[in-house]
């Protein structure tokens, strides 16, 4: 899982990364050509798996790193960043 690009972000919505937000994230990540990863405190989850993302347990205020494996997915990374920054529209 060597990330071509990665960004470190903070979870800002009150509920944190719960089922609905993780689902939105997984949907976006599924559009990527290569792998998309979420990392928190040394643990890594597959961003396309809602369950895997949930296992990271990210409440409001957690700092996570989103990484892509394939250069071509930079646009997906942008969109994930935007989604997290606007608190998943909640």
């Amino acid at each position, binding site marked *: 899982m060597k990330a071509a690009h990665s960004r470190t972000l903070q979870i800002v919505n009150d509920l944190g990364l719960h089922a609905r937000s993780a689902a939105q994230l*997984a949907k976006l990540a599924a559009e990527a050509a290569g792998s998309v990863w979420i990392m928190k405190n040394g643990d890594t989850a597959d961003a396309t*798996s809602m*369950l*895997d993302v949930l296992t990271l*347990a990210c409440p409001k205020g957690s700092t996570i790193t989103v990484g892509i494996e394939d250069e071509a997915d930079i646009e997906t990374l942008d969109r994930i960043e935007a989604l997290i920054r606007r608190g998943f529209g909640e």
Partner: protein
Amino acid sequence: MENQKSKEIILKGIGGSPGICIGKAYLVDKEGVDVVKTYMVREAALPAEVNRFRTAVKKARESLRGIIDSTPEEFRQHAQILETHMLLLEDKMLFDRTIEMIESEHINAEWALKKAVSLVKPIFENMSDDYLKQRAEDITHVSDRIMENLVGGDPFNIARIDKQVILVARDLSPAETSQIQLERIKGFVTNRGGKASHTSIIARTLEIPAVLGVGNATLKIKNDDIIIVDGKAGIVVVNPTEQTLLAAEERREQYERQKALMVRISHLPAQTKDGIRIPVMGNIELPEEVVTVLDHGGDGIGLYRTEFQYLSRPDFPDEEALFENYKDVIDVMGERPVTIRTLDINGDKAVNFIPDNFQELNPALGLRAIRYCLLKPEIFKTQLRAILRAAVHGNVRILIPMISGGDEVDQTIRLIDEAAESLEKEGIPYNRDIPLGIMIEVPSAVITADILAEKVSFFSIGTNDLIQYTLAIDRGNRHVAHLHQPLHPAILRMIKRTCEVGREKGVRTYMCGEMAGEPLYAPILLGLGVDELSMNPQAIPMVKNAIRSINTADMDAFMDEVMRLTTPDEIQLLLERDFGSVVSAIESA
């Protein structure tokens, strides 16, 4: 002991329903090995096996889609959970992993799915965050759906058990317990739940011995283990020795003999030694239960819980269906009173009806019972109309749950008037002239009993909730269930005040909580001035007998002493000292 295959283990829980049974354990565990077929699949057949799995997931997705599309706008939030389930169906950790396992381990789809679930579920179950912990349930729901399609039938269904067994489960939902068929189940044991939980109430109604709140029953008991369930002592014995078995068999026969005797003498009225007749009524949930009430000598229905008709279907029942149900009960009871409690959807039952955006952190303090009904006057009026119509056919009282102040009573009376007016306009027969009562189960209702008494004709003390709200104890939480103490001085003072205000204002005070069904408490309740008791039908004979042994004329000294004592234990001891012999004499008669 050497020749004993397994060692005898004794598990302690809470006695949820009296009686003793001996039999084989049947684990209701949705991951249980008995439910899932496991076999190896030949290399050549693997693609077909993977395909079978994909088809099952596709069918699950379609049926979920169907449910979401047919969910009314009002419950959109509920549909959101299902949308989440749709995503989970194809989540890598379930979907991809199951396929990987079929292919790499050459196992059937059911087995692979079960393994995938058992890998991912514990991760959630072991999380400290409550929200994430509960996601384990989502995984169960989703995998059950797929499993259902794989095995080509219903998922595990209690109603289908066809041998005489003792059910062992982590917990049983009200829907599950209601499916249990008496002749098939000898008893049950659950990890969770307490004496006043819904499961326990249903168990007593069905006269099945039950031990709840055992904690680790599903870990300690295996399928087909021989177990003894002692629902009175709250004990489960796993792999009993011959000696233990013989002793249990003897106790079981003794219990059955007592019960038979109690039922025989139950039809005599409950009259105290000094000639005061106390009506002893039955609590019911299903219309069919009226027969049990009459069989046990009940003088009427003191509490008819009406939630079931709402919870056993996806939509709201119409007026006609409700009317028919109420009339069924009234017709059987004849001139005996039937107390219909209006919709009391509460925390553990509200799932289907309270939209998900109301997902409450604290449902016991949330939108339930009268609060829900006043927020949904149309739903409430449908029920009120059905009650007023049924009241033409018998002796009906109407009982409003969870009243916390006078305003709620005023609003309710207005809605009853509106319901009557609409029936009048439509020329439908009804009876508006029926007693209106309120449940006394919120401490504020006790404090303002003087205000409330001006507005109603009777009080009915609901001790389960009154204790929960007064002592701040969740009765379903086994860590604090032992603190759910009916004899707590605070509870006795609450009952005393309610009865005193009632007497002063000419309002009769009844009791329909679990406390009313405990024979040993009868002296205190009569001493405090409760006019009528209503309980689980099975408790009626015992309580009637206890009442017959009381002389209310010389209770004053006893009550003075009770009210002077400062702890529940002291009060319990005093009760046992003065009345224990009477009650145990009844029990061993």
